[in-house]
């Protein structure tokens, strides 16, 4: 049949490491990250790019991985939350989320980290309004919004203080 999916080898650069994945070129990046590379931080939420749970950084921009096909991600630099930081070497945003206890269920946080990291890279000292606008494509159902906003502002403050 003409529309049979055929697995091809795609080279992907994820968190600074190059991987070869064998999957059909139209496979959403989300499933490759989670199932082929075992990077479970990036979460499924809707599959249509409407909730932000699956956002990752692609060349520094926060993008929904659920509607990014594998072919479109090839050759670009992908960063997931696992690549953003770890308990041993946390990103300022991760430190700040813990400091503000900014989460309830925590399922939306990886996508929010991607959006927030993209914002801070572009605007190191955003206003509260800018933070809220930057996170508007990320849905949170538990109502942790205000704590998350405080955490992003804290991360910005602490990063610029460190830089200064």
């Amino acid at each position, binding site marked *: 049949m003409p529309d049979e999916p055929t697995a091809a080898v795609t080279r992907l650069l994820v968190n600074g490491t190059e991987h070869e994945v064998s999957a059909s070129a139209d496979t959403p990046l989300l499933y490759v990250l989670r199932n082929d590379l075992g990077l479970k*931080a990036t979460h499924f939420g*809707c599959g249509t790019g*409407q909730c932000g749970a699956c956002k990752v950084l692609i060349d520094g921009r926060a993008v929904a991985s659920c509607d990014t096909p594998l072919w479109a991600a090839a050759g670009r630099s992908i960063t997931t939350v696992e690549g953003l930081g770890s*308990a041993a070497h946390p990103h300022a945003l991760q430190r700040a989320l*813990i400091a503000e206890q900014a989460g309830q*269920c925590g399922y939306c946080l990886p996508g929010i980290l991607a959006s927030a990291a993209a914002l801070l890279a572009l605007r190191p000292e955003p206003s509260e309004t800018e933070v809220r606008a930057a996170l508007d494509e990320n849905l949170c*159902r538990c109502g942790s919004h205000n704590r998350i906003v405080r955490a992003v502002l804290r991360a910005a403050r602490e990063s610029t203080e460190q830089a200064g």
Partner: protein
Amino acid sequence: MNLAPRRVADDKDKLPQLPGSLHVNRRLSQWLRFLRDGTIEVRSGKVEIGQGIATALAQIAAEELDVQIGRIRMVAASTAGSPDEGVTSGSRSVQDSGLALRHACAEARAIYLEAAAARLGVPVESLSVADGEISSTDGAHTSYAALADDALLERDASASIAPKEISKHRLVGTSAERIDLAAKVYGQPRFVHDFELPNMLHARVLRPPSPAATLNVLDAARTRALPGVIAVVRDGNFVGVLAEREEIALKGLERLRQDASWQETETLPDASTLGDWLKAQPAETTLVAERGAGAKSAAVETRHARYTRPYLAHASIAPCCAVALWDEERLRLWTHSQGIYNLRADLALALALPPERIDVEHMEGAGCYGHNGADDAACDAALLARAAPGRPVKLQWTRTDEMAWAPFGPAMTIEIEADLDAGGDILAWRHDIWSNGHSSRPGRAKSPTLLAAAQIDAPFERVIAINPPPAAGGGAERNAVPGYDLPAWRISSHRLLTMPIRTSALRSLGAYANVFAIESFLDELAAHRGEDALAYRLRLLSDPRSRAVLEAAARRANWQGWQMREGRGHGIGFARYKGNGAWCAVIAEIEAAREIRVERLVIALDVGLAINPDGVINQIEGGAIQATSWTLKEQVRFDRTRIAGTWDDYPILRFSETPKVEVELVLRQEEPPLGAGEAAQGPTAAAIANAVFDALGVRVRDLPLTPERVAAAMA
């Protein structure tokens, strides 16, 4: 009603009463276990659903055992041995499980001290514990780790050991960090969605296009031909696909959708007249409460108002998920269900399998706000995994499954009437509720309530939702009895006996709409008398803890000093959750322009002893923000046949729309602890609606308070 969970309780009724869930789970070894490495496993039947309960319970255990919280390892609830604590619901976990753990840990500590005294040859009175290290006054030394022996806790609790006095607490009552948050922030696999077993398959269910649809024809040939598809399952109207890879399962689902033809029927009510439809359905009427006769003769006026709320969706960020594995006629399940034992009972019915052959283990899901589709997804996974014995199957619901097929919080119509005397004071109060039942939870009926059980070839009859008993806070009638000093009232609940749209428990159940209605109507009566809304309420409240939260919120929001401005308003809402839970007062400040925008919520709360004050504040902030979303935006959309199932059809509050939320805890650390998760919903809705009246001078009595509703009320 199948009283299986209660039968256990009946047997235990002959035994002395033990605190909380310890009464029906008396074995100490069910609750905790000391390990050689110095950690202590703690088991609870209550599960983490985003509310932070694991942290609060770990604090309680660590407090009684005199260890650092880091030594406590909360073990996932499992039917293989966890205490059976029913369902994690009703804001009861701190009371039920916390109290049980407090006593179980106090007793375990005493048992280990006895063992230490015997080993060291010293009197037990000479011993003290610091982070699990046990020392005697004469310098002898051992530890929980050194003494660790499972046999020591193989006995029933006696509750003869008094737990620590509250004044001696060093950990309970402090804002310990959430024990689960760091892992989530670093993206470590934690959710059942992230769970992976070797050789695992991925599965999707082809749900019908509408609730009453039946499958005419399914041609699965094209789907089966997809490389990587392992099986297509059809069992009556239940259809699903299993594949080696997740994206292949999705492609298979798409093909199945194209190759299935359904018979659809118009069974849904007219959404535009839902309030009337609810009143016109056959119903079972219950007198909820009656007080006084009401001096009708003295009444000079009767005022009446009708309030409605729509069907509301859980709309969790993660669609439901489960992993199932059939092995040698034995089923293993990993699920984010709120009640693993109840789920097992229903699975046993649906699958015609003895419960002993089913093991259910809890794993975290995303935020859970009531009876969502977690149990349904577990049943789906079990049905599909039967087609691939020996291989684990992960079943992931789609977004549309989540939005259109999880049970909904029921639509409600509430009518309130008050007889007033010449001074405008209330002589008698009547409150009537029309609503579907607020519980279809599994494990309680003769027939399973799981979604697929009504779709398989030999379907089980769909169980019409019931209301939980009054002792559990009731369902539709939750918080229908006003907390005010009124001379007479009569509260009735009319539970629908038809259920075209499947309903069950959603956070705070009937309390959200009842408090919205009561507090709106009180505001109408205050305005009718020309009296300040706060002063009016305080005049009707003698309960000191009720008054205290209202006064605290008013002080914090500077209620008296409010500056009137065009298009802005403030309003107040208050309730004591379930009439026996937390006290909560909310003041909302809003701006009414093209749409209603909530700028600030000021909340005062009394939960008695706050095990973790920041955890309580987090729950209240979240509850208030979610209630703001319900109140301003949310209603399930449907036509006469289909229920809409995307985020476009069901928008929720976004970051830029979120109000500032200030929470003030009225601290009463000497009083028993109360749950916080459901206290703010009703008062928040009422405060917002009352603020809209303050800003615009019109009453919007139908939720949500959308621009269309506000415009209609103003016309």
